């Protein structure tokens, strides 16, 4: 059974239509939700939490209707908002225990699970200090911990990597992957960095202007293309010329050369061309499609 299901879900505001007859199904796993700002991502999350009524259409979570069973749904859902939501004057431990209680856990369970979950998200000694002094990365971990402490069946993460630097981003992505792989909790995650979603999602749903643009598995989005990418340490032009004279159409893309991969002979041509030039072969990979392509724009490396 799908975890989340919407049928012809529509949400209109006086000025805009945030969701326009959206029908999606989300199966267990890590599911990426993509859309421009204002594309209706947050609206969708609010409707799924039973916090905002839809204009028309239906939505259900675990088969429970969002308009009727809000509290039951929210008992089994975790939510990590995009914006800051942490009081600065209490410690992570105290805050997360309180939030566990607010999800209906008895006091003892709340304490034990808080200790566990803070360890799982990677907060150690700092958990007894007031949150106000935390770095962005630590705050994101606390936000994640409060969304997981009551062992939800699905957790909705709104831009969990926003504002994180590369180190923090890698940690967070790893953590999100673990939430599904180790904890067995389905993750619905939004991000502006499409490359991130390619790395962590099993399935990606793309919303644009409130309607479904595409919903398919990540492997489908990023299937290999019949191209070969190479990067050499120097003399890229000379290598390109050699390959061109061998009958290949070589395109230059920044530091990389892109050539069609019509048959396996191409691999040997490349190897020999590079070896003949006496330069280094830094990279040789089969090209892949990217989620960004469906926006019809080249996202380049932004969302690596």
């Amino acid at each position, binding site marked *: 059974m799908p975890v989340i299901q919407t049928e012809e879900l529509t949400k209109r505001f006086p000025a805009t239509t945030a969701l326009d007859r959206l029908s999606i199904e989300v199966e267990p796993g890590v599911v990426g939700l993509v859309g421009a700002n204002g594309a209706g991502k947050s609206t969708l999350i609010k409707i799924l939490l039973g916090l905002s009524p839809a204009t028309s259409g239906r939505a259900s979570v675990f088969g429970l209707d969002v308009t009727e069973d809000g*509290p039951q749904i929210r008992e089994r859902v975790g939510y990590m908002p995009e914006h*800051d*939501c942490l*009081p600065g004057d209490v410690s992570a431990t*105290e805050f997360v225990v309180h939030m566990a209680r607010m*999800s209906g856990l*008895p006091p003892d369970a709340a304490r034990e699970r808080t200790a566990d979950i803070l360890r799982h998200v990677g907060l150690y000694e700092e958990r007894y200090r007031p949150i106000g002094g935390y770095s962005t990365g630590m705050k994101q971990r606390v936000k994640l911990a409060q969304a997981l402490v009551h062992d939800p069946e699905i957790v909705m993460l709104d831009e969990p990597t926003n504002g994180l630097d590369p180190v923090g981003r890698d940690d967070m992505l790893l953590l999100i992957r673990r939430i599904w792989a*180790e904890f067995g909790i389905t993750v619905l995650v939004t991000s502006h960095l499409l490359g991130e979603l390619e790395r962590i999602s099993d399935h990606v749903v793309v919303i644009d202007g409130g309607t479904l643009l595409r919903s398919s598995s990540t492997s489908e989005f990023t299937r290999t293309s019949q191209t070969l990418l190479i990067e050499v340490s120097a003399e890229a032009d000379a290598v390109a010329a050699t390959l061109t004279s061998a009958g290949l159409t070589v395109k230059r893309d920044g530091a990389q050369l892109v050539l069609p991969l019509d048959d396996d002979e191409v691999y040997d041509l490349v190897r020999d061309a590079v070896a003949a030039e006496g330069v280094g072969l830094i990279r040789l990979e089969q090209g892949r499609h990217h989620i960004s392509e469906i926006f019809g724009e080249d996202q380049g490396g932004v969302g690596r």
Partner: protein
Amino acid sequence: MTEQPSGVIHDIGYRKYDGPRLGRARVTRALYAHSLRGAYGLGRSARAKVLPMLLLGVMALPAFIIAVITNVTSDITGGLPLPYSRYVMVTMPILAIFLAAQAPASLSRDLRFKTVPLYFSRPMERSDYVLAKYGALATAVFLLLTLPLLIMYVGALLAELPAGEQTGDLLLALLGAAVFAVVFAGIGLVIASLTPRRGFGVAAIITVLALSFAAVSALQGIIRYEVGDADLAGWLGLLSPATLVDGFQTWVLDASSSSVAPPPGAAGGVVYVLVTFAVIGACWALLNLRYRKVAVS
């Protein structure tokens, strides 16, 4: 037969939770308890405890003095120097400061740190949040008002004042204190819910309470004594929370009035009662209205 292993590595990985989930009502109760403790700084930083504890002490001090005096002078006077039901009015500034400090700490803080969405994405409904916060602050105020009354009561019993009479008076005063607590907590919370800035909340609550009390008392005094119109002075008492509830307990609970003028007659009494309940109802409605509109993300 295999040997019994002497060492074992336990799995400390993620654990599923299959214990009870307590549902809306118990969540609301947990928030109530948390907020009530928070009003006295319990479970918060040491700095958060200073003011409420100090105020509790300051509140209790006069009661303690009264208890001592009673024991010294009871042979002569045969009663408490100050009736239970007047204690709240006499110590009104302390109540106002407590409210101005703790109502914003309860609501403005959640607004400022944007924690409200975290509550609303959990099993409780918005009205549960309001109920828990309102109940907690009203209880906190009630406790603040109750402690000195109990001290006086103990003092009175030690002074061997008639126990039955004292108990009756105390119970009536406690009932009055409860009404004070509910009305004042409601007004404080409504104001606090409008601003995420604690400073403004504090200033606004003090302004409303102090200004209304000062203005109404001044007017009542002038009209009652300079004009000699006790009825009109009595009606004016409806216009500030302190004089309103004082009038309520004067009329309903037969307490001794601390206001310049008590409610005028039976009609006045009934109006006082109605207005008191209307104020409580309005606070409840306004808070719910306010939180229906708080954005979640």
